[in-house]
């Protein structure tokens, strides 16, 4: 593999652009295929499928191996709350790149979140700059409609692979009413995981973080394709 090709692959990854490295297992020249260069590629159809599923592998009936790079998943957490203090370090260990948004400066302090990007801004200010995308897990934990609701509308628009929101069934029913009034369709509202996290009987903030991260992992591994 030429060094320039390896550099291009790494650059695509750090820019959060999907890319596929096509390697000839018989030792021929390799090439990098991106969304811009996909049309007209001899393996266009196989590469399109690989980009959708995120799975690397040999193209059937050929000696071409596809190394598929989809952007590393990110996690946007709305709310610098107690659960977030447990969730963020766990999410990092699993491989997510987390960021916290909470306009309440009493919550969003560096002391509570050492080494974590915490934006003490309203979602409307903070989210556009974060380039939220399909490969983002989005979790609203403030319990405050003024903060969570606009954030969730942003997550719908960006089609995040996971959208979760803290709150009981009753709280969620009221949230659905408000978001419907804001123009959210029943289809997108059905995508919200609420109550957030897998039902494992979690009680403490750290246990709730485990249940959320388990549900995010499930969505990533079983759902994104």
């Amino acid at each position: 593999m030429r060094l320039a090709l390896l550099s291009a692959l790494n650059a695509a990854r750090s820019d959060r652009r999907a890319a596929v490295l096509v390697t000839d297992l018989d030792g021929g020249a390799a090439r990098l295929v991106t969304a811009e260069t996909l049309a007209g590629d001899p393996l266009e159809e196989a590469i399109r499928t690989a980009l959708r599923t995120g799975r690397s592998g040999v193209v059937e009936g050929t000696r071409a191996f596809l190394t598929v790079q989809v952007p590393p998943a990110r996690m946007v957490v709305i709310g610098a709350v107690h659960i977030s203090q447990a969730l963020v370090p766990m999410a990092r260990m699993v491989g997510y790149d987390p960021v916290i948004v909470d306009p309440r400066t009493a919550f969003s302090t560096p002391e509570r979140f050492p080494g974590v990007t915490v934006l003490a801004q309203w979602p409307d200010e903070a989210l556009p700059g974060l380039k939220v995308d399909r490969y983002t897990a989005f979790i609203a934990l403030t319990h405050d409609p003024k903060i969570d609701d606009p954030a969730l509308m942003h997550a719908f628009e960006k089609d995040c692979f996971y959208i979760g929101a803290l709150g009981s069934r009753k709280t969620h029913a009221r949230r659905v009413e408000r978001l419907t009034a804001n123009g959210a369709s029943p289809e997108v509202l059905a995508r919200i995981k609420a109550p957030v996290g897998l039902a494992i009987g979690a009680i403490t903030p750290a246990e709730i973080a485990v249940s959320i991260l388990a549900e995010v992992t499930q969505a990533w591994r079983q759902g994104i394709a």
Partner: protein
Amino acid sequence: MLSTDNDILGQAEAWAKAGKGVAVATVVETWGSAPRPVGSHLVIDEDGSFFGSVSGGCVEGEVVTEALDVIGTGKAKLLEFGVADETAWRAGLSCGGRIAVYVEKVG
């Protein structure tokens, strides 16, 4: 911090840019139960330093040895590993699966 694929290929690039001979090993096929999925990388420099994984630690030693040869000759290799055969004194997978690993030089 656990190493991600990003760190692994980033390490290969950093080594190569520092003027070292580097090889990238990639799991290209698996059969049965295999410890690391297709697309997993192990990167190796000319001194035998390595980063990442292609198995649960079962065959990395042999892949590194082969990689040093690939760095020397510049010729890529396709390696296959199956169940450990202790009588043959060869590296193998204790999980009972088989894997194919493609090793190529960078540069």
